[in-house]
Structure formats: structure tokens, C-alpha cells
């Protein structure tokens, strides 16, 4: 099972990074979700696979070959936080589009960041704005 999981993790991580490196912000936001999924799966698998029973102990009876519950708890909260982050990234995407229109990722900071006050006289390095 671990090789299958590792292959999935590797594939998802590679695709996630590929999307993060896209020029289009809409794809970048999707990349956040995919990379997040890859890492969640990796953390989960690092707690060792091969369990035959879920981590339930009815009446205190610990089943043989029960799953490791700790990474499950960690990943569970990570998924919810990942959702919140995804929502935030989407909101940010929408906001930046509403304010500045469609932009390549590299040029977003050029319109949103003010140059440092001391450098204002200097040559405008980010003149594309």
C-alpha cells in the first residue's frame, strides 16, 4: 500500500507545484488545494499504513492491527484548515480581480505594493504598474 500511496503523493505534489508555478492566478489557487491534499496524504501515511481495523475501541477492546489514530486526528484538522485557506485564497483571487483585473502572478505585487517611502525618488523598478 505504501508504494501506491507514495506514488499518489508524488504525483499530486508534482501536479500541485506545476499549478502553483502557473502564470494564471486561477490555476495557482487550485494548486494550493492539490498540494495540500498531497501533503495531507503524506502525513497520514507517515503514521504507517497496513491497518486492518479503524481506530475504534468499543468497550475498551483494542482491535489487533488498528490504525494509528494520531495522524488521522492531525490530518482531519489539517483538512478543515486547508479548506479555510482555500476559501481565503479564492476570496483573495476574486478581490484582486475585482480591483485590478486579470493579472499574471508576477505582476500582482507591482500594483498592490507601495514602494518604500525612502526609495520613492529612485528609479521605478516596477514600472509595469
Amino acid at each position, binding site marked *: 500500500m505504501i*508504494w*501506491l500511496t507514495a506514488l499518489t503523493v508524488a504525483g499530486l505534489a508534482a501536479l500541485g507545484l506545476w499549478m502553483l508555478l502557473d502564470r494564471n492566478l486561477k490555476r495557482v489557487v487550485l494548486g494550493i488545494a492539490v498540494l495540500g491534499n498531497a501533503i495531507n496524504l503524506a502525513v497520514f501515511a507517515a503514521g504507517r499504513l497496513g*491497518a486492518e481495523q*479503524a481506530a*475504534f475501541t*468499543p468497550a475498551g477492546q483494542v482491535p489487533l492491527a488498528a490504525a494509528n489514530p494520531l495522524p488521522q486526528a492531525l490530518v482531519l*484538522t489539517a483538512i478543515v484548515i486547508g479548506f479555510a485557506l482555500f476559501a481565503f485564497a*479564492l476570496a483573495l483571487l476574486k478581490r484582486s480581480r475585482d480591483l485590478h483585473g486579470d493579472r499574471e502572478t508576477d505582476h500582482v505585487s507591482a500594483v498592490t505594493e507601495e514602494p518604500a517611502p525612502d526609495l520613492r525618488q529612485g528609479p521605478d523598478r516596477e514600472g509595469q504598474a
Partner: protein
Amino acid sequence: MLQALLLLLLAALLAPALTRLLPRHAGACLALLPLGIFLWLLSHMGSIADGQVLEQRVSWIAALQIAVHLRLDGLSLLFGLLISGIGSLIVLYAAGYLEQHRQLGRFYAYLLLFMLAMLGLVLADDLILLFVFWELTSVASFLLIGFQHDKPEARRAALQALLITGGGGLALLAGLLLLGGVAQTWQISSLDAAQVQGHALFPAIMLLVLLGCFSKSAQLPFHLWLPNAMNAPTPVSAFLHSATMVKAGVFLLARLNPSLGGSLGWSSLLIAFGAATALLGALLAIRQTDLKRLLAYTTVAVLGQLTMLIGSNTPYGLQAFVLYLVAHSLYKAALFMAVGAIDHATGTREYPRLGGLWRFMPLTGCAVALAAFSNAGLPPFFGFIAKEFKYSGLLELGLVGGLITTVMILTNALLFAAAGLVFVKSFLGPPGAYPRQPHEVSLPLWLGPLLLALGGFLLGAWNSWPETWLVNTAVQNIASGPVDVSLYLWGGFTPALLASLLTISLGLAFYLRRDLLLKLLGRLQWFWQFSGDLLWDRLLKRVFAVAALTASAFQHGSLRQHLALLALCISLLLGIGITWLGWPLAPFDLHQASLPALLAASLSLLGALGAAWLPGRLSLVAALGLSGLGLTLLFFLMQAPDVAMTMLMVESLGVVLLALIYRRMPRVAPQGRGLAWPRALLAGLFGLSIGLALLVSSAAPLPGDLAQWYLANSYGQGHGANVVNVILVDFRAFDTLGEIVVVALAMLAAASLLGRTPAKLGTGDPVFASSLLLEGLKPLVWLLLGASLLLLWRGHNLPGGGFIGGLTAAAGCVLLVLMHGPASAERLLRLRPRTLMGIGLAVALLAASLGLLGGGAFFQAHWLWLGELPLGTPLLFDLGVYLCVFGASLHLFQRLTAEEHAA
């Protein structure tokens, strides 16, 4: 002692308010505090002179053996008296000098803060405590130099002083940490000289400490901040930059002389740097025409001599150190204050424009005369005794001493001439061309200088008094062994007396032929070029250029380059780690994978591939959803029902959110071919390294038995069969609290990015209109809400819990919001989603705080048994999680749909 420091802190805090209440008398009131400290220190002089010490110890960081350890011995008593005595006069003087200033209260506060730092520094018997006060003096000095912050030169001087002394402070910190480590103690009084000096690290310790001390005491090449610090108001110059702060470095040298001193390296460094600083300071002083800058450079010269005297480490030298220190503090503070008074009265500090001031300002003149005589080292003033001992101490060093004595005679002759400029040129002779008609200054302005100058005279004339009470014990604290002290004005015809006579006659010659001297010095153009401030500016310019270069290399504003660099570093680090471990991969088991698992994994990979490739918006949303679904199945197959259910809910909500936002955006245009290959290579490398890292980490069995512990104790201690849920709400509940706070904040932030909620949510048109859905929906929403409560309730023993329940409830209400408009969910719940979220957080906190009942810990669980059914605070906490997640998610969706309606 600690009380004195705390009182100073209190006074500093209250000073602005007091000055507003009593604008006229605040200075006098505040001066009472240092005066009180002065008197208190005086009352201990007897016992300290008998060789006793006063100690006070308060535990601070017990684990590191760092304590607030204060110790009053001869050396700290001497410094304490100078600080508090001169300090009280300075506060009084400032009241007169800055009478009209708008921010006088703030000035008092800074001044008292500085006094606190300085007193703490001399009293500290702990290396770390000492460093804290040391830095505090730098900060207070920065604030005081930059007090007139509307002047650019004041800001520059303040920054320069801070950079130089602060940089030295860093070196000092390193030195003190090494020292403490080598000596196995932070207590200064128990440092063992043999142990420290025998250690291999001793040269490093010595150099670092010396760097700190030299920067603070303006030794070559750090001397340049001191004259610039004269941009501060005169009371500051008189106090900090002549009498006290610049002495902090010398103080630390003296304090550490018993433990670090005695070696040849220590002595040679101190003598060489001290002598060079002294001569340079004196040469620079005589070239100035501004009296304040002139005094500043003479201070540099004196600091150099003091450093040198510690380095001499002879009985006479150390006595001369203490004597010269006291004499200089008294006359230099007096001279600075008097120059301030002259500035006040005539409107100028340029001595070529001064002269004949005696008839206008006799009291100030008296003070200047007395102080200048002491400065020039004339008998019977204290400065004379100091000079005699200085020469005796240096001559004890033999051949080197002879050479240095020659340099010192030159230095002191120059100082003599400088003193002449301050008194004779300014106060005697024909009246100068003053900018305004001079007048005698008010009482606070002449009282301080006169008292200090008189003190210098009296201490010299009746020199057995300071010998018995002050100098003796202080010298014992500096020296490594016992030293016999006896002061005298007349010691017979000694070589020292000869040197003194030579100094005075040379000084007279310098003063009388100063035109010639200045002309000669003026020829050394190249020398002034590099000894001055110019180098500093050039250095700063370089530093800024390097900083700008570094920053622009990394802060280029390109998200893709940032990410690429980060990913590359992660891949390389993982690769190095895996190689270092020798590639121990988990055994190959791909052929054993079950068909459902293979299908689930392929589904998630194919989905992700689609999300990476497809251009259409709807297909993107579908692809991402598919990928999440595949992962959900995988989690189910790997015996993680709770994780899988959470994933399922999150994916459903995420897809809806994505669809809502993307449907208003254009297609995602395919990329140009430009940089596809490097990008693919990097992505592949990144994925590969993470996958390999997982295989390597799974090669060995899991260390420890944490999993077994949770499994074994979940039912017995947490009364729950669902171990994952028990971990979330009981064992690691604090984590969970932090996580729901993050979720709440992220959702709030996302929602506020989407714009303001309209004050009244219109019922408006639904987003998706279909009469069948509209009618059929309500029962479905109720079903989902009911199911979510069931999931919450059974979560402790069966798959479910607060997170899953909250997400399910949110999904139900999101359906409602989409169909019936943003206000519908609010009508149904009779609560704003945001309020719901707040209630959830409050309930979670309440559950955590209930643990405190009966002396328990935060989050300690309490249980109540209803027959067989255990009810406890973890369940209440889970309810909080449910409400928080529910409210936060719904809040976002409501805001999003409300905004679409408004648009």
C-alpha cells in the same frame, strides 16, 4: 538598591504627567529622587570603606541561574555617587535650560530612564543583567541625542551612536556569554581569573569584551559618534557624554580587570588604543572653535587616558584611574553646563566671538575657572593629583612607560591649552562680538557647575577625605591584589613632578602660539580626511547598497520565482537527507495493492491532472472535485472513516465555493510554451523527493508506542471509543482550540475580502432557480441539520464529531442560501452565522475553562454520569467546534451570495 531602581522607573513613567501638572516645579521635584539616592549611597560609605559589600538578590530566570543580583562595593559606590549626584544637578539644570520646551516632561522621562540604566549597570553583579542595563543606556542615549528629532543632524547623530554602541553591544553580549560559559557562573564577583585566563577561549572573550567597551567609551576608531552626540541638548551632553555613559565602557573594563586583566595582551591593547585615542582626541579638540565640540573631543582624549591607565595595571596607575575619573566627571560636567549657560546668555558657542564674559557672568565664570584649573591639572585641584598619579603610574612601566609618558605630556599639554581657550579666551580679555547682550543666567543654570567645580577644588585641597572614604575601596575592587593608597599634593621632586612641569610649560606655549599650532595641524589634510566622519558616511552607503542588492535579489515581486526557489530548496534538502540515510526504501508492494485502492489513487491523480491542464472553468471545478473524491475513497480504504468523511464534506463545500467564484471569471487560457520544461522538471523533482521521503520514512517501523497509548487509554480515560475524536476533543484539545480559531479567522478574513454585507439582506432572487428544487429543498435541509446533530452526538464513539457535523450542517444551510437567497439561512437559524461562530468559540473556551474548576488544569475533563451515559466537558467542547465550523463556513457563503445579489 532594587527599590532605588524601581523608584527611578516609576519617576520616569510619571514625569510627563507631573510636568503637565506642575510645569514650573516638576524639575525640582524630580531632582529630589536622585538626590535621595545620592544621600542613601553616602550613608553607606562608611561600611563600604570598611570593606563590606551590600548585596541583594531576586530570582529571575532560575533555570539558567540568571538572577537580578545587585552588589554595592567600592567601585559601584563611586560610580553611583557620580551618577546620582551629578544626575540631580542635571535634572535641575534641565529645568532651567529647557524651560520653554514643549516636551520637557518627555525629556525628564528619558533622563531618569537613563539614570536607572546607568545605576543598574554599575550595581549589577550578574553578567546578563549587566548587559541588559548596558543596552538600556544605549537606547536611552539614542532617545536623548535624537530628542530634537526635527533636526536632521540630531537624527543622524542618534542613529550613528546607536549603531556604533549597539554594534559593540552585540560583540559584548557574545563576549559575556563566552565568559559566563567558561567561568561556569554569571556572577561577576565570583569570576575566577586563573580559570578564565587559562581557557583556550580567553583571547576571544577578551577581544569581544574590548570591542563592546571601546565602542561605548568612544575609543579609536569608534570615537566619531561622541562629538556628533553633542547635537543633544546641553544637559544630555553634560551628563551622558562626559560624566556617565561614556564611562560605562571604562567602568566595565575596571570591573572585569581583576578577572580578565594582568595578561600582556590585555595591557598592550588597552595601552595602545588608549594612548592613540588620547592623542587623537586632544589634536582634534584644539582644532575646534565650537566650545561644545572642543569639550567633546577633550572627553575622547580623557577616555583614552582612562583606558590606558587600566591597562597599566600598576598601583599608581589604578589609583590615577579612579582619581582622574572623579576629577574628570566633576570638571567636565561643570564645563559642559557652563558652556550651555554661555550659549544661553550670548547666543553663541564659538570662542572666537567670545571674550570678557567675566563682567557679565561672574558666577558662571567662577565655575568655569575652577573647573578649567582642574582640567588643566593645576595644583591644588583634584585634577592635579590625578595627573601626578597618572605620570607615576605610567613611569612604573619602564621603557614603554617612558614613551607613553611622552605622548601623554603632549596630550595633556593640548588639553591644558584647550582649558585655556574655555576660560581665559572666553571670560578674560576684551569683550567679544556676541550675537546678543549677555547676562548672568538663572540659579539652576549656574548652581550645578559651581557646585561641581567647587567639589573638584575641595576634594583636591582636602585630599585625605576622598582617600579614606572613596578611592581606597574603589581601587581595591579594580586591582587583582591589595593596593596601598595615599594621596598627596606634594610628593617631593619626583619624575612625575618634572613631567607635570613640562606639561604646564608646553601647554602654555601651545596656548600662546595657538595660531602657529593650528596652521601646522592644518597641513595634515590627509589625516583629517580619514579620521573624520567621512568614512562613516561612505561605510553606511556601502551597507545600504549591499542591503538593497540582497533585498532586490530575493524580494523581486515574482511569486513564481519565490515558489520555485522554495521548492528547489525543499527538494535538495530532502535529497541530501535521503542520500545521507543511504536510500533505505520501504519494500516494494505495488503489486499487492487492491483494485479499489488502485482505482481511488488513479481517480485522484487523473482529477489533479485535469485541474492542471484543462482550460474550461466548469471542467476545472469538476476535475478538482474528482481528485478530492479519489482521495476520500483512499482514506476510507486505509481505515480512516473520520478523515474520509471530513474530506468528503470539505470537497463538496469547496466545489460549490469554487463554482460560485469561477463562474464569473473567464476561461483559464493555456500557457505559452515558454518555460514549460524547467517548470515540469522542477515539479517532477519536487514530487519525486516528497514521494521518496515518504518511502524512506516508512522503511522502518514507527518508533515509540504513542499510537498504542492512545488506543489503550481512549476508552478508559476519555470515555470514548472513537479514538480520533477523543484525541481531538480531549487529549489534544488545546491544539484543536487553536485550529478552530484559525478556521474562524481565515473565514472572517475571506468574507471581509468579498466586501461589506449589505445592512439588510434582500430576499432577492435565488442564485439557482428551479421550482422543483425550491420545494423539495426544505425537507432536505432539515434532514442534513438533523444528521449533523446526530454526527456530533455519536462522534465520541462512532465516526462523526464536531468538525464533520459542523461541515454537514453548513452544507445543508449553503443549499438553502443558494436556493432561497442569503437571508434565508439567517431566518431559519434566527442567528447571524457570524454570531453562531462566536458562540461556538465561547462554548469551546467555556469547556476548556471548566477544567479549572476544583483546582484542575485548563482543558482538564470533568465527567457527569447519567446512569451508564457519560457526559463531560469534551462533549461540550465538541459542540463548540461544531458551532464554530458551522458558523464560519456559513458566514463565508452568505457573504458571497449577498455580494452577488448586490452586484
